[in-house]
């Protein structure tokens, strides 16, 4: 891990990632442009290209390679680190974001492929210290142990309540099926999801 490379402990993991991001942007300036296809739109990359994303209502232009996932773009380039990178294979759900109203695995989505979409991350839920009702419900129900899966579960629950304002347990189980809690806190997650019903806000 990054922090082990810094014996004095003066560089945080997040700062390290920012540095890496800046380096890849600088390298991109020198990267040759890919040849243009005979017809149709030009190929972008493989070096960094401007990618326009609307994240939590704010337009951002990131200079990133086409291979950068939405998750890595949001965490490492837009500095919104609420959603977690866990399996990075579309299996665990910790990276769950809401794109155009529906949950997606941001680790399995290219950032460049969701330009023009409305992207919501867990970072955009709270109003300062004022938590979103779903976040409040997770706290009240003690719906987490280690907490690493929680951002994904919170986003999946927000989507659940937008689809079913007063969900049944069966609806909650089905809509949260794409998220895994390895501590096994599922019952309290469901409790939180059901108790947050009817008090949803954007």
């Amino acid at each position, binding site marked *: 891990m990054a922090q082990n490379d810094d014996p004095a402990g003066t560089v945080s993991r997040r700062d390290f990632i920012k540095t890496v991001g800046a380096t890849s942007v600088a390298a991109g300036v020198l990267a040759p442009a890919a040849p243009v296809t005979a017809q149709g739109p030009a190929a972008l990359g493989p070096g960094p290209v401007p990618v326009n994303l609307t994240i939590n209502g704010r337009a951002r232009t990131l200079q990133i390679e086409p291979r950068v996932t939405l998750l890595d773009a949001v965490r490492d380039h837009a500095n919104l680190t609420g959603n977690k990178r866990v399996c990075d294979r579309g299996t665990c759900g910790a990276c769950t974001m809401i794109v155009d109203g529906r949950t*997606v695995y941001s680790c399995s989505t290219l950032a460049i492929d969701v330009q023009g979409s409305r992207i919501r991350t867990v970072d955009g839920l709270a109003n300062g210290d004022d938590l979103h009702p779903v976040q409040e419900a997770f706290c009240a129900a003690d719906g987490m142990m280690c907490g690493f899966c929680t951002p994904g579960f919170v986003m999946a629950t927000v989507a659940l309540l937008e689809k079913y304002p007063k969900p049944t347990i069966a609806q909650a189980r089905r809509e949260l099926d794409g998220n895994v809690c390895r501590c096994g806190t599922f019952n309290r997650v469901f409790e939180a999801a059901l108790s947050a019903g009817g008090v949803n806000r954007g």
Partner: protein
Amino acid sequence: MKAFAYVNPSNESDALAALRSGGIVRPLGGGQDLLARLKDYLDEPDRLVSVKGALNREAAATGDGGLRIGAAMRLFEVAEHPEILKRYPALAEAASTVGSPQIRHQGTVGGNLNQRPRCWYFRQEEFVCFKKGGNRCFAADGENQYHSIFGNDGPSKIVHPSSLAVPLVAYGARFRLASASGEREVAAADYFTLPSMQTVQKENVLADDELLTHVILPAPGNVRSGHYEVRFKESRDWPMAFATVVLAMNGPSIDSARVVLGAVAPVPWRAEDAERVLRGRLLDDAAADVAGEAAVRGAKPLAQNAYKIRITRTAVKRAVLAAAGRSV
């Protein structure tokens, strides 16, 4: 993953031209399978062509009473589409159980049909199997509990991973394939290929510069259909064995039947013996029993998957009962 260039065409002909733009080029649909393969270095394309904006996303009635589904339609849209639910319910049901909500929101019809196998040896970069240009199938005498019990005489013991492929073969669907030099239509049943040493690196007849653009379903006629998936757990996973049955009815009797099995062979597997025993029978409990028995006749399990014979028999039996309108 290796760095790649990205093209985002807005129509089919630009997408097809981009597939021929040199180097290794892959179409990107929902990306739920492709991105994982790229991260694991199972595929290292020079360029991705995003086809979601280029291909059709609708289900439209055809002139002869069938339905034409664009390959960019998302799986959740298939599961919720009123016409599909009404006329091709086994297809809607199969789509509704693929992966998780997140995967169904992103995953497309084309991507589901063209995803690569889930074999754990195939998915590990270190195992260079026949499918990756190597000289063996590690599942043949390895950990093969999730591998094939039919069609496994060839070099690869995979099972085909697509859930939609099975009901599509059962309903007699055809696929429209297009390239920059023309288009063709292939029956779903002929699209998927059993592995031979010549074809083992692919699971279907799609060429590298072709796109599967549409799925064309014939008018269902007077049919009853049923679909049943046997799963290890109630939550998200690939089914261990599943079946779709489509029965053309003549009053209470079965005129003809299509019985197709999933997760048991390298292709969606037609259970022709089961189709034969159903012909002319009343659609009742006894029909379900004999169809289940006949469907597993000739199965050749590997060392660790004989259990699949039993659950396949159950899947067929329950699919027939579901077609009869019974809750299973």
